[in-house]
């Protein structure tokens, strides 16, 4: 499983320049927002938590269809399915590799983008904490969506339609954590709920995703 993890990580970083695209997308979304809503720093700092979370979510969405597509095309997914490790473990490792390769950089640069959007000083630590806690759920849910659509020729758009409604709870609690942190309110409840959603998805969704892959490989 660790070998699979490092292989996926290496593929994500080396192959085809896909690495960093999500990061660039996150930057561009954040830069575009002030053009859309105007440069008043008051408005920007109000909407900053939501914009940063939505930006992270969309950048995460961009790379989802790559999770299984390449392995499905060249047949390595069949090999992984017949390998001695359980398919649920494969799915979990795929999600983990996706998180480390594409989402973790987003978490790390988010304070800089928060600076661009004039986030309240108290919000920075909560921004990083909430993203670090919540985005593994995004990767896991996305992996499930990718498993559902892996057999489809043009699954990209369908994938977003399927996955985005599933992101709603994570987004709500994530953005709420940052908002409360920025306003200096207690953040305990949304943070705990966010962590709960992440742990719940990590525990349960690998089974659903593995079931979907087995169906798609039939």
């Amino acid at each position, binding site marked *: 499983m660790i070998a699979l993890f490092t292989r996926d990580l290496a593929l994500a970083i080396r192959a085809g320049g896909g690495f960093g695209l999500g990061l660039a997308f996150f930057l561009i979304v954040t830069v575009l927002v002030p053009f859309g809503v105007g440069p008043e720093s008051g408005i920007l700092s109000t909407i900053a938590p939501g914009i940063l979370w939505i930006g992270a979510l969309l950048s995460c969405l961009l790379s989802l269809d790559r999770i299984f597509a390449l392995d499905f095309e060249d047949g390595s997914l069949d090999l992984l399915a017949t390998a001695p490790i359980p398919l649920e473990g494969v799915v979990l490792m795929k999600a983990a590799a996706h998180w480390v390769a594409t989402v973790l950089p987003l978490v790390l640069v988010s304070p800089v983008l928060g600076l661009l959007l004039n986030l309240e000083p108290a919000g920075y630590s909560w921004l990083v904490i909430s993203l670090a806690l919540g985005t593994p759920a995004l990767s896991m849910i996305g992996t499930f969506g990718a498993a559902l659509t892996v057999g489809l020729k043009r699954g990209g758009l*369908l994938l977003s339609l399927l996955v985005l*409604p599933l992101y709603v*709870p994570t987004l709500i609690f994530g953005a709420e954590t940052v908002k409360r942190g920025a306003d200096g309110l207690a953040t305990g409840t949304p943070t705990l709920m966010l962590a709960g959603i992440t742990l719940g998805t990590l525990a349960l969704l690998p089974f659903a995703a593995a079931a979907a892959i087995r169906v798609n490989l039939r």
Partner: protein
Amino acid sequence: MASIWQYANPQKFMQSTTAVLPYLAVLTVAALATGLIWGFFFTPDDYKQGSTVKIIYLHVPAALMAINAWFMMLVASLIWFVRRHHVSALAAKAAAPIGMTMTLIALITGALWGQPMWGTYWAWDPRLTTFLILFLFYLGYIALWAAIESPDIAADLTSVLCMVGSVFALLSRYAVNFWNQGLHQGASLSLDKEENVADVFYLPLLVCIAGFVLLFITLVLLRTRTEIRARRLQALIARERMA
């Protein structure tokens, strides 16, 4: 040996629904006509809301069925997943567009009702938001059915999606509650309708709800029959090609 599973046989299902459907259709029309005519023409106007109160006869039953249709799809998906009865998968497929339409009816009548009462067509109230999310879930479910060619694979994948989606729909419902309390204080916009409905409005409302339940059952049976026929047609075409 009368068990509910005998209706999993498409043959048996077609036979029994052929017998039942006419009665169901008549009952549906009767209940809907009674409820709606009673509600629209023979109930007084509300002293505060005027005649807009009559939207209740469409809004509440549609909203009720929008949720129950998803629940029915969940049960049908579970049955397909565990016991692999094709009728069950087809019934789930048949129910989805109906449920989506009910959600849309609830949203639209709600907007029309909200305009005169709240002064706005739309507010990010927990209930309204939950229904919008439910609508998106229906969209995704139907889109996944439409995207996959092999019927068995489509049935499997959509049933997995329905089960996961149910969990997330429930989660969203409570998450949205939380989110809204964080923004507005108090529920000044949400009407807790059923508790403060007087008997004059309540009885026709019950008839309307019964009518919508019957309508849903009738439509699901009809559409499931269509799906079974479509499946048979495909089999015939495939057989002809082989010969």
